[in-house]
């Protein structure tokens, strides 16, 4: 049996999943899943699938049997909720106007979106480039960094995810993508990510004042030893989720400036309000040279991502930086504009901050009641609950986490597991405090059930 990696999400080949499917799926769904497996290539995290979907709306997804689940995963496309009526309206209107724009031409709505992105970004940002996916946008950022610096090396983080293409998996830090793939892109160095709960440098175990920013200084050390690094590229908050201290990014920002490297932030999964700010980096009092956004940018409907860069980086006019067919898609841009307008009009960033703070405080209380919960953390509506077998050794409670996930699913709450034992909670930003309470109740009931099961 080949080793199954649990870094990116819950695995799709476990006995627990089979059991859940046997108990919950009817014949019609089973037959769709069979057909799905017949015609699609199997791979981790998708086919064979968990279930068949009929619709999605607001904070809910609905399966073929009519069961609704609050979706605290949503592949992070659902800032404004699924099937948002204002986004759908904008898409339909655009379909009646101009549905595609060849790359030699521009169109009004694409220009409007670019302008909007520059308006919502801090003043230092000036230029935009669009493409259909986050992976492609990361590639555009890497290319621009090479052209701007004349260097090719990068420093990125172990455990990070930046996309599925070769350049993205080369800077990414997960075996599930990198193993048996032959040589990666040259010059992609990796640093251990910040993590106070499981610090690889052991700072937190040394007693005294705890975290002493060794991990940030390690990045500076690498920049110095390599000498010609083009860029440090990282997610400003980790998907585990670990929220670094602002000093962490401030140290790295300074080190990048000192060594002539650019700082690129990948905000694909948490941009546009999830962390309580339009851009995640605004939480750290640090500005990157480039930021990549995606996923929810397309309103949860249209594949769209963007590279947004500061002044002085529009340097590649003779090169093909992002040669993508749907570069200035009028429909995609209409969806994105409607999404940003919806977020602003309904103050979703503020809602994310408020409901997120509330949820975090409730989860901290929950932690005191359940020894299975080793740590809770997060920022805005990007939350994580780390389950451990033992609070001292912090041994990952992998089987328990998976069991909790299926128990919650049966009660109408869907979320993703990362690293095998961390429940990640990323609901749509339109969620109310009452709905959050409902979800947290389901979570606690499920944890109770599994604690009882595992202590027997």
């Amino acid at each position, binding site marked *: 049996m080949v080793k199954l990696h649990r870094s990116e999400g819950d695995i799709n080949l476990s006995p627990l999943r089979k059991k859940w499917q046997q108990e919950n799926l009817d014949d019609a769904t089973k037959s769709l899943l069979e*057909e*799905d497996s017949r*015609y*699609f*290539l*199997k*791979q*981790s*995290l998708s*086919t064979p*699938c968990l*279930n*068949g*979907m009929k619709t999605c*709306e607001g904070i809910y*997804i609905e399966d073929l049997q009519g069961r609704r689940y609050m*979706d605290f*995963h949503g592949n992070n496309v659902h800032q404004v909720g699924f099937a948002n009526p204002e986004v759908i309206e904008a*898409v339909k209107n655009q379909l009646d*106007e101009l*549905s*595609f724009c*060849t*790359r*030699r*031409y*521009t*169109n009004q709505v694409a220009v409007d979106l*670019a302008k909007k992105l*520059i308006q919502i970004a801090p003043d230092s940002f000036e*230029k*935009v*480039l669009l493409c259909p*996916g986050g992976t*492609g946008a990361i*590639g555009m950022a890497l290319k621009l960094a090479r*052209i701007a610096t004349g*260097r090719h090396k990068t420093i990125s983080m172990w455990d990070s995810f930046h*996309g*599925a293409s*070769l*350049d993205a998996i080369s800077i990414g830090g997960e075996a*599930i993508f990198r*193993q048996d793939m*032959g*040589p990666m892109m*040259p010059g992609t160095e990796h640093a251990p990510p910040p993590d106070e709960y499981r610090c690889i440098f052991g700072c937190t175990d040394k007693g005294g004042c705890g975290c002493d920013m060794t991990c940030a200084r390690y990045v500076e050390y690498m920049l110095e030893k390599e000498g010609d690094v083009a860029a440090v590229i990282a997610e400003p908050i980790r998907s585990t989720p670990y929220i670094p201290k602002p000093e962490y990014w401030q140290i790295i920002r300074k080190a990048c400036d000192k060594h002539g490297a650019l700082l690129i932030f990948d905000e694909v999964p948490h941009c546009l309000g999830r962390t309580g700010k339009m851009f995640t980096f605004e939480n750290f009092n640090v500005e990157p040279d480039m930021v990549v956004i995606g996923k929810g940018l397309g309103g949860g*409907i249209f*594949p769209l991502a963007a590279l947004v860069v500061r002044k002085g980086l529009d340097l*590649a006019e*003779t*090169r093909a930086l992002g*040669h*993508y*067919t*749907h570069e*200035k898609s009028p*429909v*995609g841009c209409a969806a994105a504009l409607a999404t940003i307008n919806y977020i602003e009009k309904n103050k979703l960033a503020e809602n994310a901050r408020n409901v997120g703070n509330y949820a975090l405080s409730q989860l901290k209380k929950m932690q005191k009641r359940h020894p299975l919960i080793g740590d809770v953390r997060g920022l805005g509506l990007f939350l994580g609950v780390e389950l451990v077998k033992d609070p001292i050794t912090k041994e990952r409670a992998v089987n328990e986490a998976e069991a909790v996930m299926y128990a919650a699913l049966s009660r109408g709450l869907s979320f*993703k597991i990362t690293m095998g034992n961390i429940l990640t909670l990323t609901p749509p930003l339109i969620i109310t405090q009452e709905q959050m309470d409902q979800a947290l109740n389901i979570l606690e009931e499920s944890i109770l059930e599994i604690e009882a099961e595992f202590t027997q």
Partner: protein
Amino acid sequence: MNSQNNFKSSRFASEQGDVNTTQNREKYWKKNLSETAKSICTRDNKYFLHQNLSTPVMNVLSKAHGIYIEDMEGKKYMDMHGNGVHNAGFNNPQIIQAIKDQLDTQMTFCPRRYTNSKAVDLAQKLAEITPGDLCKSLFCPGGSEAIEMAITLAKQVTGHFKTISFWDSFHGAGFAAASVGGEELFKGGMGPMMPGTMHMEFPNYYRNPWGFSNQEEVDNEYLRQIKTILEREPGVAAIIGEPISATPVVPSKNYWEGVKDLCEKYGALVIFDEIIEGFGRTGKMFASEHFITPDVLVLGKSMGGGLLPFAGIVTRQRYDNLEHRSIGHYTHEKNALCSAAALAEIEYIEKNNLVENAARVGAHALSRLNELKEKHPIIGNIAGVGLHLGIDLVKDPITKERAVEEADGIMYKAMERGLAFKTIEGNIITLRPALTITMEEMDQVVDILDETIGEVENSQFY
């Protein structure tokens, strides 16, 4: 930078398409852009990163429908380029309706843990219409990513990592796709690319280094080179190519059969990139049908119905053994909206016999273009099949020196007469209209070309 206005050295800058920084471009802007269009272009330049082949752009579009694109002043252009998305025509009403209907079902996004019936229907349809025993699909938003999925699959199933692909080819803009691609534009100044990507020439019966004119001799020479690489560089995972090159050169069936035999012997897969050529373009539903069934077929562009980003790979049952790996970890993997568009596109192509239309109108165009060749000495060669056509312009029929300046002039002159196309490698006019084009419309296209070529031949440059 100083090569921008120098046509003699611009062969590499313009291999993918006409460059957007020439003097002709500036003249075209001055002559043709209204104040409204200029003001949008100014803002476009202000907010978008500049790059070759897009910003700064040629003009502003207000509409695109059928075989036409339309600018802000309502001027229509027959679009022979369309970035390859317009097989069923731009803004196809039946595809738009299918997308709107799908939006109304609220099945607008499918998290990757789940499936949905539209996505499964599309995968089943592709298993039915793709050649041979191709039957297993994987989707993603763009062709560039789909190429990477194909390479990843080849690496994982062969245990090898090297690739052989073709100079001058384009497979996408991502690092791996650009590495297997063969264009300077995507690699120059970029530093190290993906390791293990080896390149060779695509067969060329008009321009080959030996001066052969006999197909078989040309094929044999290229096959001998591939064999040499496979022998000396063990560990090739795949040979990746477009079945027909973009210029286009249509290789012989013998050539691709020879490649496939060599691949089987040395344990490499054959990957066909039909992002442009699939879905009827060449007068067959898939260009592979002219030659061989590849191990992996890569699709894109028109697959999204001409308006949604959508692409994918289709491969054989026996390669469906990577359930422990992530070969295509893309958010919009089983996007129901894109699947609805793709199904509507295929249905439209089938119902309206667009494959046959492409074959018929293409054959007619080819014969008319060959007539033009007799008339205009600047036309060195006519090539293509179906609605995938190319006109190679030369300064001299013997030396075959590329007529780059002339091609650029013809392009802008044709544009002013309502005909848009793209030039490749500086001197090759490529014609890839919507497959809905009629015989009469194609005649108009050829007439405009006849006029504009004639004018440039008589030194009336743009």
